[in-house]
């Protein structure tokens, strides 16, 4: 029982990260029809700039806000400088561009912060809460809480504010939105900014996960979050969030309950488990958990 509780909470905190990354990825896809493969690099940049800011003596919450502003700004710059000039060009060209922007971002991060793994000090230390016999670190609980707050805030913004309505209109039909006087360009910029903020937050979580982290470890988390987008349904942000949490949970439970039955294939199963789930989903339910079935309109 305590095992299951510990695993569930670990899975939820992992899922929180996946949900944040996948939500940002999916929001950009909805707005610009682009798979933004540079999204994963923002995690590393978020984690690294957080260490620098904390070392510089900024209080933790302020540093977190600055980090999210930085990654958001980077995402907005990518949109303005790379994605927007590619309008009216085939979509795959833009996707290829984001792949190479990702390489550039990685190089820039390596030039600024070097290749050495770094440690992120956080205010939660090693303290843990005893819950029904299980030791639950406060750090993990805080991650889940902050992620839920961020996702909730994002959806409130999407549903209730002027900006959110503009975002939804833009993602439904850019030309009609433009004709109705919605500043599509600015809305797209804001969408990418918000998505970058979510990635930065996820990056800080990824940095907190291990005592030492480097760019590779944060990037791996981002790559494992991508399947959540398809499992949740490419066009459904809420489905993506649910899928993110589910993938986190299954990824934690799979090595414990599934791997022993799979022989040598089960070793390090968690590395690929999200992708296995994604492939199963594509076979059984290709439009995802909450995605819409494709309806052709001419």
């Amino acid at each position: 029982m305590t095992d299951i509780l510990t695993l569930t909470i670990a899975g939820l905190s992992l899922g929180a990260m996946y949900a944040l990354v996948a939500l940002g990825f999916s929001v950009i896809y909805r707005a610009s029809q682009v798979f933004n493969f540079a999204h994963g690099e923002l995690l590393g940049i978020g984690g690294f700039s957080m260490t620098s800011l904390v070392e510089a003596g900024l209080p933790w919450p302020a540093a977190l806000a600055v980090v999210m502003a930085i990654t958001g700004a980077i995402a907005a710059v990518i949109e303005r400088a790379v994605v927007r000039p590619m309008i009216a060009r085939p979509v795959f060209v833009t996707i290829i561009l984001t792949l190479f922007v990702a390489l550039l971002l990685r190089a820039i991060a390596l030039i600024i912060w070097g290749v050495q793994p770094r440690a992120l000090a956080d205010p939660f230390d090693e303290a843990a809460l005893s819950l029904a016999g299980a030791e639950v670190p406060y750090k993990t609980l805080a991650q889940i809480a902050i992620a839920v707050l961020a996702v909730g805030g994002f959806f409130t913004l999407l549903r209730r504010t002027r900006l959110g309505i503009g975002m939804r209109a833009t993602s439904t039909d850019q030309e009609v939105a433009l004709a109705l006087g919605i500043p599509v360009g600015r809305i797209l910029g804001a969408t990418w900014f918000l998505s970058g903020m979510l990635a930065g937050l996820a990056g800080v979580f990824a940095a907190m996960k291990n005592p030492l982290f480097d760019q590779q470890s944060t990037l791996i988390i981002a790559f494992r979050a991508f399947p959540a987008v398809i499992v949740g349904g490419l066009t459904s942000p809420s489905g993506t969030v649910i899928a993110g949490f589910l993938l986190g949970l299954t990824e934690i439970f799979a090595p414990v309950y599934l791997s022993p039955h799979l022989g040598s294939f089960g070793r390090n199963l968690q590395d690929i488990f999200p992708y296995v789930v994604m492939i199963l989903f594509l076979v059984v339910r290709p439009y995802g958990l909450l995605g819409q079935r494709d309806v052709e309109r001419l």
Partner: protein
Amino acid sequence: MPTRPLVTRYEDDLRLFPDRWHKVGLALGAALLLGFPFAAGASWLTAGNHALIAIVGAVGLMILTGFAGQISLGHAAFLAIGGFTTAVLGERWQLPFWLCLPAAGAVATAIGLATGLFALRLRGLYLAIVTLGLLYLVQHTLDAYPALSGTAGEKQTPMYVSFGDTPEGMRDIYEKMAYGPLILDWDQKLYGIFVAIALAAAWTARNLTRSNAGRAMMAVRDHDLAAATLGVSPVRAKLIAFGVSSFYAGVAGGMFALEQRTITVEYFQLPVSVEYIAMIVLGGIGSVWGAVAGAIAFVFLAKLMQTLGPSLPYLRSLPTGLQTAVLFSVLVIAVLVIEPLGLYGIWLRIKRYFVAWPFRY
């Protein structure tokens, strides 16, 4: 002036080498290909062999991305499948290499079709993410079964010429040998074989563009709904493209294994897929010529950049692999923004200048 001959029949339009200048170019190219292994030094010859491998792989990716408009991040996975198939067939059953390479392609095709069957069912570029998953899956499987990937992650790839060759008997294939009046060393022999494969790859791909299946791919790339309305099945066209592309990648992986003689699972990762994408973008998306030019340019530029990288500010602090990656990223982004058709586009402009001379256009 070399103007284009008047086209009066469909046969004229379909000819591979429509005029004198194509034939002159062909002759020059053949002379260059034949002369290269004897003129080039050892390190350039190795680069030449790598370029030939890259041509086969890039032509494969071009069929998928350039013709059918799908993105694959899993090209490295198919290279790995091809490479390890060749290695296992050679080591286990002593099969000759000319049987291993098509087998490598066939295994890659089978896996590609199985993946593509559900990844390509939907509209949109799902393939990009699914092939990323395939890449991790293939790596995981290879790592999990040492029978496939060799002990300590390394796999020897022997090269046999005919059935019944033994490892002892084939040892001298890697040495200098006399074939009649020609004395060839290992790299030169390999070069000859690879040139034949690369030419076959480019030629078949060129012919594919002139076939029904090829035109269907391009119709789907340009507008899948319109294509479907005209009776082209988008799923079928994309699936054929993915299958053919996987075959080429499998063969290229097999060639790579033969050339390297020892392959590791670690090599076949995402950066390799991205390199192949860089090649086709550099050459010009949408033409076989572009894939060939891009592959050659990539391999030789990479060789130059390895010497250039350490002397640039900031870049110096990066690992060598990333230095070249950064330089290529800048190049690819510049190409996509400034000259979307890459080397092929530049070539078209030069050609147009001379064709229209003395007028501007």
